[in-house]
């Protein structure tokens, strides 16, 4: 599974859009989810109040993150859970590997963890000769295809049922050409059941970790986190440091927001609460930083750590819907990914904050009120300042800035064939007129407004 960047967002999006029918299908499918979300939230009179509460709880938690994490650790340990701390992705993977080695484990199932995607755990373990089986249906499908998830809630949303049928035929020996969703789901279920039964260790993510109780909650629609955790001898939960909330009473706010924002459901089918290992079982939690404290220290971007990974910003984003998740070349795609990933690697992800029209829909759909589009704007400033910008673009911008700072030059330039707007956007781009590729140019009128005004102001 390669997450290595090969193309920037614009180039990858162009390839995606070439298949226009498929792009339309992708767009419609996600728009359908967005509409379900709208229906679900417009039935809740106090929706905006819930968002405000969620945002305040998260703000408060982020301001006291160290205290809450320590309280959580203490409480969880008192419950008999083993806590591990990982500074970065590598350390997370090494810790996991150590648990596997110490217990001599080879059969592993995993459920609901974008964090392990972010850390590239599967790749890491594969190199050590260990295979992990993803048990979320969508995740299993992309895993069989050796692809990355393209969406954090609907990881295989870029695939049609025909694609799934082909994949299953190849890997699970289902009937060729049988695209019946029920048949395919049943095949996946049987296949996963075998893995569940045999698994010795289950990895899950964490949606919410509660400082007060030392317990945590995992939300799944398929119940697979439960299946894994309840059959395996060892349960390892991986969480980012930002997953903490202070008290159990705060859960209600987030559980109401999460499922509605994600899929339009009133609540996720399974909200599994884990508090302590059952007798004979071991339970571990790996608490991961991986750039989060750095982001916490960036005043303009700390707000992004409030994210509860509902993906509402993906579904609402007109750019995401038309460019596909893989065009973002990162584990977390979409608008939120575009503000989280430059923090992890600014150079590799310098294109992402520009993959937006700044329409602002993401910020307004976000259940925890992250100012996503404003952060995109701010990242653009940082990226240019740090020099991750093409020199042609810089020259063009400087030229424009000069032109607009000098009213006389501006008017002269406008008059001489009204060329300036014609050339303006494309100066940075030597392939000449990109606008014209699929759009006509605006007609150049004889007179500017300025000229008209001079002639008519005293009439």
């Amino acid at each position, binding site marked *: 599974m390669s997450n290595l960047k090969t193309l920037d967002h614009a180039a990858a999006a162009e390839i995606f859009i070439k298949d226009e029918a498929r792009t339309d299908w992708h767009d419609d499918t996600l728009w359908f989810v967005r509409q379900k979300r709208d229906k679900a939230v417009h039935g809740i009179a106090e929706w905006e109040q819930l968002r405000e509460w969620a945002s305040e709880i998260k703000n408060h938690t982020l301001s006291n993150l160290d205290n809450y994490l320590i309280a959580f650790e203490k409480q969880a340990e008192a419950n008999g859970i083993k806590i591990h701390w990982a500074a970065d992705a590598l350390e997370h993977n090494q810790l996991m590997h150590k648990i596997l080695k110490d217990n001599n484990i080879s059969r592993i199932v995993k459920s609901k963890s974008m964090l392990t995607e972010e850390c590239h755990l599967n790749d890491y373990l594969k190199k050590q000769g260990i295979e992990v089986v993803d048990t979320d249906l969508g995740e299993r499908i992309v895993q069989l295809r050796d692809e990355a998830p393209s969406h954090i809630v609907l990881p295989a949303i870029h695939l049609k049922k025909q694609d799934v049928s082909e994949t299953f035929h190849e890997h699970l020996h289902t009937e060729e050409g049988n695209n019946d969703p029920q048949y395919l789901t049943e095949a996946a279920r049987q296949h996963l059941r075998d893995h569940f039964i045999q698994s010795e260790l289950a990895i899950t993510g964490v949606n919410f970790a509660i400082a007060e109780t030392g317990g945590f909650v995992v939300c799944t629609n398929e119940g697979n986190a439960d299946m894994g955790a309840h059959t395996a001898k060892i349960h390892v939960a991986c969480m980012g440091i930002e997953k903490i909330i202070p008290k159990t009473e705060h859960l209600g706010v987030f559980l109401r927001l999460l499922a509605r924002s994600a899929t339009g459901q009133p609540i996720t089918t399974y909200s599994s609460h884990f508090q302590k290992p059952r007798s004979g079982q071991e339970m571990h939690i790996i608490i991961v930083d991986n750039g989060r404290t750095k982001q916490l220290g960036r005043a303009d971007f700390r707000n992004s750590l409030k994210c509860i990974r509902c993906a509402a910003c993906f579904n609402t984003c007109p750019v995401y819907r038309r460019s596909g998740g893989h065009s973002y070349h990162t584990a977390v795609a979409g608008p939120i990914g575009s503000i989280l990933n430059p923090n992890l690697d600014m150079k590799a992800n310098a294109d992402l904050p520009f993959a937006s*029209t700044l329409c*602002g829909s993401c910020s307004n759909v976000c259940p925890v009120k992250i100012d996503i589009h404003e952060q995109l704007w701010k990242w653009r400033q940082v990226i240019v300042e740090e020099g991750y910008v093409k020199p042609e673009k810089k020259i063009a911008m400087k030229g*424009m*800035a000069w032109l*607009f700072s000098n009213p006389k030059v501006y008017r002269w330039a406008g008059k001489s064939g*009204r060329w300036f707007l014609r050339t303006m956007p494309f100066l940075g781009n030597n392939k000449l007129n990109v*606008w014209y590729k699929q759009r006509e140019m605006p007609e150049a009128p004889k007179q500017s*407004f*300025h000229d008209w005004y001079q002639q008519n102001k005293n009439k």
Partner: protein
Amino acid sequence: MKVGLFIPCYIDQFYPQVGIATYQLLKKLGCDVDYPENQTCCGQPMANSGFSPLTGGCDKNFVANFDAYDYIVAPSGSCVLHIKEHLKDDKNPEKAQKIRNNIYELTEFLVDILKVEHLSSNFPYKVGFHTSCHGQRGLHLSSMTERVLPQFSKPEQLLQKVKGLQLSYPERKDECCGFGGTFCVFEEAVSVKMGKDRIEEHQKNEVDYITAGDVSCLMHLEGILKRQGSKVKAIHLAEILNHE
């Protein structure tokens, strides 16, 4: 009440008719309107591309031109939003602040300040309204589908006063058209696809015109309409409100 008319650079150069309509409309409604003649651009193209340190010249020029007015009005939500959020004057911060407080998008000015009750306009056509994002979500000119708040729309309030006009919305009422400033060239494929999708929904409503409060969205949609050889035309809201 002295009103300074701000006609953004690309409207000045390519869509003077929008500037003319805005000017005439404000006059008709009794405003004392002036067009400061040394104005150029608000600086948004640079700032949105990540080059906000390069907007100093634009800022300086803007303050020099508009400092003296009680109100500044422009037929472009996105330029107004840029000024509101980012105009700076390090030497005279109070001047920049005054402008930021007093700048209005046209429909906002007509509804909130002039409190226009009647319009003498007449426009007997089927018109599809495109909700421009910066005006809607940035300046709160209308409610949006994402939020659970009372519904309202300042531009619609005005369009409903126009005789003969049949207003329609695309199915996705407030989806972005894909212009997005320099996004329209640096992300050309997505930009055009978004524009095509917007147009298709309007065409389903069999409109004669697509209108909006931002010329930038319209320029982009018009470019695609013309390339397609469509009969549908793009027209700025000010032109409709000024049409008799």
